[in-house]
């Protein structure tokens, strides 16, 4: 039976934990709003880019000499797995879920006899992958200095990835991140970065519309694609990281909300125990006094 003092100490410690989780939840909620706005305002660019690429790519894809970024390097031996996670913990299963999906993919690749290289963005993913696949991790990008993710923050990473591709250090690149759906739901997403996947043009109104108009290309279709494809990789990466940032805050908000609620439950049950113990003590003392008086 814990003493009254112990109980009191525990209650106050749980109370202060609850205050912290509550504050974290509030911070995550306001950050979430900002992250969500950023993800939404990045959408028009990515959408228009996709539209242009779908139209252009469909025309050029089957021609010989098409850019390796579009057609691939002709083999699938080495795969670069880009794992985007958060910089901070305390966000529920967010990082674990992404890493789990990435690990499943990595295992599949290794079983198929392929070489895997891992690029971590965010140190939480690195911490989890390190135990099993330390020898495969080629680099970890620390994004903890970045408050509001800007395109300029992502571009160096994209350039690095593209440089590696040009040096034929890998054939295929896949990005793992969590797509934001709502504060409660984040969808683990696996996205192929290189070669650039094209949207199916056949059942797409936008591409039809694009194909309908006869465009004049300056300098040429190939040159435009040459310029656009590397940029598309950067944009896709940027978009993934923005989604990831929103998901992280959403996951943290939910996690902190349930932590606050758990702390509340704990305080309630501890208070009940505390009050019962207090009453039991009073009763015990009364009995002692009464029985002492009777004995006289």
């Amino acid at each position, binding site marked *: 039976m814990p003493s009254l003092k112990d109980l009191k100490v525990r209650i106050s410690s749980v109370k202060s934990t609850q205050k912290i989780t509550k504050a974290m939840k509030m911070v995550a909620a306001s950050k979430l709003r900002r992250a969500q706005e950023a993800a939404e305002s990045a959408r028009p660019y990515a959408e228009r880019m996709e539209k*242009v690429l779908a139209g252009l790519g469909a025309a050029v894809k089957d021609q010989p000499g098409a850019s390796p970024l579009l057609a691939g390097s002709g083999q699938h031996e080495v795969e670069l797995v880009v794992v985007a996670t958060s910089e901070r913990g305390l966000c529920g299963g967010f990082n674990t879920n992404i890493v789990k999906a990435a690990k499943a993919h990595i295992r599949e690749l290794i079983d198929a006899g392929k070489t895997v290289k891992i690029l971590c963005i965010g140190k939480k993913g690195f911490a989890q992958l390190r135990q099993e696949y330390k020898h495969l991790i080629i680099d970890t990008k620390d994004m903890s200095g970045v408050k509001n993710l800007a395109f300029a923050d992502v571009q160096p990473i994209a350039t690095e990835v593209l440089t590696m591709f040009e040096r034929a250090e890998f054939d295929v690149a896949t990005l793992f991140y969590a797509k934001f759906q709502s504060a409660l739901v984040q969808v683990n997403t696996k996205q192929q970065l290189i070669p650039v996947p094209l949207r199916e043009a056949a059942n797409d109104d936008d591409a039809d519309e694009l194909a309908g108009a006869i465009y004049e290309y*300056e300098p040429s279709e190939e040159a435009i694609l040459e310029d656009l494809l590397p940029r598309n990789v950067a944009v896709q990466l940027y978009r993934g990281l923005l989604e990831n940032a929103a998901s992280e805050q959403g996951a943290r908000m939910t996690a902190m909300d349930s932590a606050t609620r758990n702390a509340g439950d704990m305080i309630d049950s501890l208070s009940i125990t505390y009050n019962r113990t207090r009453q039991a003590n009073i009763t015990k003392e009364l009995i002692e006094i009464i029985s002492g008086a009777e004995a006289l």
Partner: protein
Amino acid sequence: MSDTLRFEIVSPERLLKDAQAAMVVVPGADGDFTALPQHAPMMSTIRPGVIEIYESEDAGPEKFFLKGGLAQISPEGLTILAEEVLQLDGINVDALNSDINEAVVAVEKASDDVERLAAEKELAWMTALSEVLN
């Protein structure tokens, strides 16, 4: 026939501008071109340079510096997918000059073609910008 043209400038971060204009002068890769209403559909890459937006025929142009990107003229209007957009009056010339010097060094130091190409690209937009400012 409408005498204004709808144009949008979109950067990776957000939609920067969505407005009507009488004409827009775009720094295309093969030379500047002017987009007027009812322009034939075309697509062009953009070299680092200044885009001039004339809201009406007699008004002075609104200028932005583009680091590069893609211009697409479709029947609906002009869409510019810009890599990065800079306001011309907010640029620190001294900082730019030192950046240029750094870029020159980077080009010289580049250990292989891939690195050199990247460094040259950086240098290209910086010199274009400093030419515009002077």
